[in-house]
């Protein structure tokens, strides 16, 4: 509860901070304080210190899983602010409002990760989505940004419609929004209920950009300002996944056999489309958009298997993926040339940036000793332990191998090709935070236990 209330309050504070001060640094510092406070309060709540006692009538459930996920997200957000804070200021003139919108989205993330009724799910998803439409179009003079925003809005509104319809059908057959009621007494699967589950599944697949509902992703990610693409591809996507798994594990676990195949097919399609299309990209930003689809394919393994391991794995995957992608984007948005050639010779001219970027790429590709490996490992393990979807595991393996191709293209460009020196603004602080992020990725890769133990510490 701490996180939701505080992030909403801080959003308002951020909005007004723009009126009282024109100094961008002050605004940034307020935002940093805000995110630190949020992180601290979430950690306190994990340890049982709760500031707000509001009876939500089991509409929101703050279990360890959702709180730990929030802690992970706020940590990533802190790193994101530290790395890309300056770049947010370059997007346009309404800096305070961008920060305010980001904090409102965090409130949405808090709701989407702890809902226990379909109503709250809907609220959470919408609170995340609406500020995002604005942020996508925040580069007002850029036609591509406007187009992306409109496209995202239209498609998003459409999927919201699907979700509402799904909720209505499920409500119609069960007579309640509560996941507890929906989960009970699943023996009679009426056609109305099946249609509702399918619609919910499709709308969630849209939010996590799983194929064949991914078409908006490349254009929106490419058109939006780089800093916000980074945010959308990581934190928002992770939150949508947590909502996805909460919804399906909370309400449709008993009838898993009925819909598992459909999700498995969606997963396989997502993996293939994301990975194969990413191979053909010339722009790294667009490649990362497709890579985020591909990574979503891997996270879908958790929805397919839906066991304890999948829950742990998804949490871990979210952390690993967010850290690496935020890092890659932080460097990318400071470059002038977004193509692969832009990275040529980086190993020579910016050795530190190239080294950390290599760690990020290795992690995304899933090489051992990085968090990305343990994340993929968990997903494969979850799927294999169900004992049913071995074909999907094989598909995943093949796609993981394909993904090496485009991630390593960046490494090849940085180290094995010569290029002109590009100016990349990188102060010691920026490099330090990048170094810490890379260190965190390696640390999590070697000691995954450290994060996952927290899941059980507080029970």
């Amino acid at each position, binding site marked *: 509860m701490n996180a939701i209330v505080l992030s909403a309050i801080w959003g308002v504070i951020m909005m007004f901070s723009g009126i009282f001060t024109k100094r961008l640094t002050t605004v940034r510092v307020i935002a940093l304080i805000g995110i630190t406070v949020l992180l601290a309060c979430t950690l306190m709540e994990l340890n049982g210190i709760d500031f707000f006692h509001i009876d939500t009538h089991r509409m929101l459930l703050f279990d360890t899983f959702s709180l730990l996920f929030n802690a992970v997200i706020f940590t990533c957000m802190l790193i994101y602010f530290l790395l890309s804070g300056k770049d947010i200021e370059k997007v346009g003139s309404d800096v305070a409002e961008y920060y305010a919108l980001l904090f409102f989205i965090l409130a949405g993330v808090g709701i989407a990760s702890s809902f226990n009724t379909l109503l709250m799910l809907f609220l959470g998803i919408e609170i995340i989505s609406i500020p995002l439409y604005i942020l996508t179009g925040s580069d007002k003079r850029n036609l591509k940004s406007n187009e992306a925003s409109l496209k995202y809005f239209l498609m998003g509104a459409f999927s919201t419609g699907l979700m509402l319809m799904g909720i209505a059908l499920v409500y119609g057959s069960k007579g309640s929004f509560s996941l507890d009621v929906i989960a009970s007494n699943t023996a009679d699967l009426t056609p109305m209920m099946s249609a509702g589950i399918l619609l919910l599944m499709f709308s969630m697949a849209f939010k996590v950009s799983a194929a064949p509902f991914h078409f908006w992703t490349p254009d929106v990610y490419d058109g939006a300002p780089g800093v916000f693409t980074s945010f959308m591809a990581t934190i928002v996507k992770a939150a949508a996944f947590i909502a996805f798994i909460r919804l399906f594990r909370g309400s449709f676990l008993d009838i898993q056999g009925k819909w598992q195949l459909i999700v498995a097919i969606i997963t396989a399609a997502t993996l293939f489309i994301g990975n194969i299309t990413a191979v053909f990209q010339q722009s790294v930003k667009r490649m990362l958009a497709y890579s985020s689809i591909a990574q979503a394919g891997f996270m879908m393994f958790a929805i397919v298997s839906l066991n304890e391991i999948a829950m742990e794995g998804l949490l871990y995957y979210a952390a690993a993926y967010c850290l690496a992608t935020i890092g890659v984007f932080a460097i990318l948005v400071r470059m002038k040339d977004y193509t692969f050639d832009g990275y040529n010779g980086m190993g020579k001219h910016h050795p530190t940036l190239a080294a950390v970027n290599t760690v990020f790429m*290795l992690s995304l590709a899933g090489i*051992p*000793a990085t968090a990305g*490996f343990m994340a993929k*490992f968990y997903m*494969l393990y979850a799927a*294999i332990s169900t004992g049913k979807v071995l074909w999907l595991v094989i598909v995943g393996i093949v796609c993981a191998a394909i993904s090496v191709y485009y991630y390593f293209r960046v490494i090849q460009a940085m180290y094995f090709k010569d290029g002109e020196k590009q100016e990349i603004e990188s102060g010691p602080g920026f490099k330090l935070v990048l170094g810490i992020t890379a260190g965190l990725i390696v640390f999590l890769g070697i000691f995954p236990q450290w994060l996952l133990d927290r899941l059980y510490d507080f029970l």
Partner: protein
Amino acid sequence: MIPVLLVLVPLLCGIVSFFIRSERTVKTWALVSSLVTLVVSLLGLTFLKSENFLTAEAEWIPMLGSSFYLKLDGMGTLLCLLTAVAYPAIFISTWHQTYSKAHNFFALMLLSQAGLMGVFVAYDALLFYFFWELALIPAYFLCSQWGGERRIPVTFKFFIYTFIGSLFMLIGIIYMYTKTPDQSYALESFYKLNIPNSDQMWLFWIMFVAFAVKMPVFPFHTWQPDTYEQSPTAVTMVLSGVMVKMGVFGLIRWLVPIVPTGAWAWGDTVSTFAIIGMIYASLLAMRQDDLKRLVAYSSIAHIGLMCVAIFATDNMGMQGVMIQMFNHGINIIGLWIVVELIERQFKTRKMSELGGLAQKAPALSVLLVIVALANVALPLTNAFVGEFLMFAGIFNSNVSQYNEVFMVTAGITVILSAVYTLNMLQKVLFGNTSQLTANGKDIRLNERMTLVVLVVVILAVGVYPKPILEVTQSTVDMILSKMINKHP
């Protein structure tokens, strides 16, 4: 204690090397580190032989039943010794080679050594997979950065091949883990598994692909000649001398004892492929003009024989594989050193442009002849012991249905190997000097020293192989008991 040191010394020294800017210092540093590793490995073989020193266990990921479990058994000791010998030999023999960004080069070399050592001592499947990949990453960077003209696409092919293979292995490992009664990745738990026969049929292939790519066995070998040709020679020595042994080693430790029925059912198929590959590679080796490609193809032929001998499931054959893993590493590193010396002096690897070296470089010639004869497996050289045991094992095999056919066809490749090796000697050493070799000089002291040491090892093992055979006997007995006991 010993296994931890074997991994830790090169790992830490490698990380330090990244920060040493002077080329001379970093060379010395790397050499010292590799010598320390050699001493540690020799200690493990001689004075500190007790169980306490050879085992190390610590908690790693208890949630998954995986622990940091290292152990040196007979086979591991031998391969660690090979790795420990190989690196100083490489560093000394290429002492005069200069590299751009030498600190990165030597750091990555040492990291690859750490990965290799880890593979040979890991007694936990997940840890094994970790090291398996960690050995690959430095090799990728080494080849792509310091290799020949076509290095980037070639190395990338190598990387993708091995990466796909290892991902399949990962599925296999996870699958076996889910079947273990105590939910553990420890090798002992894997050895207790009783996997249903129908599962063993596919599990065998899913694991075998990873090892087959690494060895490489026909038809998974296509990355190998290109990579060997394009890599800097120091890296080629690591790849062919030590890294291919990862495949053979993995097959023996992590596959055949765990899925014996699969190995038994598919053994003849694999052996057939391996023998096709041996003959094919030998024929190709005869037609090569490039020295590096010749050695590369000859290596495919030798490794193929080890593969056949493993599936023969016979005490002699298995012992032959063990000793031959060591010998092949020594011999091929010797050959690469000579190739490197020739290339550095004459700027060519084409045999047609060389000739008459015996007059100009007598010391080099004598040493090359001995190493080359070891490659042909002439009696008194180390390879004879290994190949003889392997052929005997294949012939005696009770498991294979076509053991005589395999033995005879594989025997042909020995003749072929004599053909191309002697042909190579003739073209390089004898005949008239060419334009290039007219002003040839003999080799320097450091190079002579390394080659002499290798030749001494070759002859010593060739005459008295017993100490090595004793080291590996226990492992062989254990593996064979697992393979034979579980036969249907």
